[in-house]
């Protein structure tokens, strides 16, 4: 029953997360509700910080390729390609064409795997689990082909600085074509479902609105932006690898809602099949890698890559040694997470899961830094020294009755024996 006129609903703030059964990764959301209506939404990241950037600085470039590949479990090729192409630019390496084509093929196969995965999750979030089951079954086709080409289903490990590790042979090319044919047919079926199944259309239309202007001002990227009719795609705007040779068409939509995001991703799948076919047919002969130096010349570089979720950015600063001085990664979710607050304005609480899922978030890839606030400082962003943090935390725990000096002693004894 709608509340009577003049009777104001009391506002309720509910915290969701960081530990919550509905969340796949720990993150914290605060939702201010009036009844079922969302008045305000705020997200707090920082529960998945793994210190990967710092770890990169302590390892050589060779080792870092494997480390950055593990930033994301789904778009792993995205990160290793961004990283290697940045290092290759610093070292002024002339990467063979064949290697670039292979990178594009793997990258596009990865996009298929990511988008089909998303389709399933979106189905699951709106209670259409049949879609989840079938799209994930079909996703196995692309997982198998990735495993055949690279050795593993995820973390393909195909990139090295200077090229790729494994070549494509005749039978691989035949298998890719066969898989792409199967997947194309299945995607056509899903497009048919998405455009004709009325329950799905009605559930997704008008949910999580992000008008064109807001998508621009909030800096959305990837399918989130393209569903608000922002024709932005790094593959076209700043083509890397061999995208400029393959020809590329941006898929956009003007629904501005979750339904639009579904259509964009499905449309992108069709474009991806075309790209893979073009790459396989034009695959040049030649070597697949050049030898890279261990020490990378001094310099700074910025590398962009269109990941399945949006623009992925790697920044590397080299000081002439075999280890980078600084590695900075910006995963696409960081750009898109701000848009969620806008999308959820005045929406129903029940739409929250699908609206968050529709940006295809990857929170652990996003977590890049933690801010430590000095409680005694008037400047809340003041820099604290490492030792001060340590003594502060020891003091804090002591005031709560936890004394680590005892534990430390026990640990030392244990380690001795």
């Amino acid at each position: 029953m709608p509340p009577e006129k003049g009777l104001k609903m009391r506002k309720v703030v509910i915290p969701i997360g960081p530990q919550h059964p509905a969340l796949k990764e720990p993150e914290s959301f605060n939702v201010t509700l009036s009844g079922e209506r969302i008045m305000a939404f705020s997200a707090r990241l920082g529960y998945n910080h793994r210190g990967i950037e710092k770890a990169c600085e302590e390892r050589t470039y060779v080792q870092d390729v494997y480390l950055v590949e593990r930033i994301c479990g789904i778009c792993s090729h995205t990160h290793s390609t961004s990283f290697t192409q940045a290092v290759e630019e610093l070292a002024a390496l002339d990467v063979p064409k064949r290697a670039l084509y292979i990178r594009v093929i793997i990258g596009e196969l990865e996009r298929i795997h990511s988008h089909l995965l998303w389709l399933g999750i979106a189905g699951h979030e709106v209670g259409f689990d049949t879609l989840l089951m079938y799209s994930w079954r079909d996703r196995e086709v692309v997982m198998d082909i990735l495993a055949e080409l690279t050795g593993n289903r995820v973390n393909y490990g195909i990139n090295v600085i200077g090229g790729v590790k494994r070549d494509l042979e005749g039978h691989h090319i035949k298998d890719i074509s066969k898989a792409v044919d199967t997947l194309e047919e299945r995607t056509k079926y899903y497009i048919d479902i998405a455009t004709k199944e009325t329950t799905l259309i009605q559930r997704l239309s008008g949910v999580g609105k992000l008008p064109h202007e807001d998508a621009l001002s909030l800096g959305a990227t990837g399918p989130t932006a393209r569903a608000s009719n922002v024709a932005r795609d790094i593959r076209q705007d700043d083509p890397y690898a061999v995208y400029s040779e393959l020809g590329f068409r941006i898929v956009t939509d003007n629904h501005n809602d979750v339904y639009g995001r579904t259509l964009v991703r499905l449309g992108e799948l069709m474009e991806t099949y075309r790209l893979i076919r073009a790459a396989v047919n034009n695959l040049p002969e030649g070597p697949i890698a050049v030898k890279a130096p261990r020490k990378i010349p001094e310099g700074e570089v910025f590398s962009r890559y269109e990941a399945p979720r949006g623009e992925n950015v790697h920044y590397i600063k080299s000081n002439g040694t075999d280890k980078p001085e600084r590695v900075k990664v910006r995963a696409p979710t960081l750009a898109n997470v701000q848009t969620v607050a806008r999308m959820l304005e005045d929406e129903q609480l029940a739409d929250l899961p699908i609206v968050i899922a529709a940006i295809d978030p990857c929170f652990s890839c996003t977590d890049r830094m933690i801010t430590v606030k000095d409680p005694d400082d008037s400047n809340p962003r003041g820099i604290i020294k490492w030792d001060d943090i340590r003594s502060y935390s020891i003091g804090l725990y002591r005031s709560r009755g936890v004394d680590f000096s005892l534990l430390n002693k026990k640990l030392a004894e244990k380690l001795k024996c």
Partner: protein
Amino acid sequence: MIRPGKMIKQVLQSLFMKPATLLYPFKKSPMPEHFRGEIIFHPELCIGCQMCVRDCPSRAIKIKKTEDNKFEAEIDLGKCIYCAQCVMSCPKKALESTKEFELAVLDKSKLKIIFSADPKKSSDSQKTP
């Protein structure tokens, strides 16, 4: 035609199809050609150059000299990320990726595997050729 239940035909057809899943562990799918599983070491080939140790991203491999021109390797399977960089770095092909992936153990100490030319010291003697 826009209508609900568009997928019903597919669902009903699936009733008469083989399951898409495999009855693991009774039936196993074959591992792909370039699969990167457990790393094994051939002591007779190693020259102790330490290239593998230098390039291992997770510091999982150690090469020790036991006698003159004899080396043993200790691989920590708990640390290894199965990237096979060590296999790539080795100039003598003393390291090799296998298709072995069922490596879980109940006792953590069993994750440290020693490959040695001396069969008594080797904790993985049955796999060392």
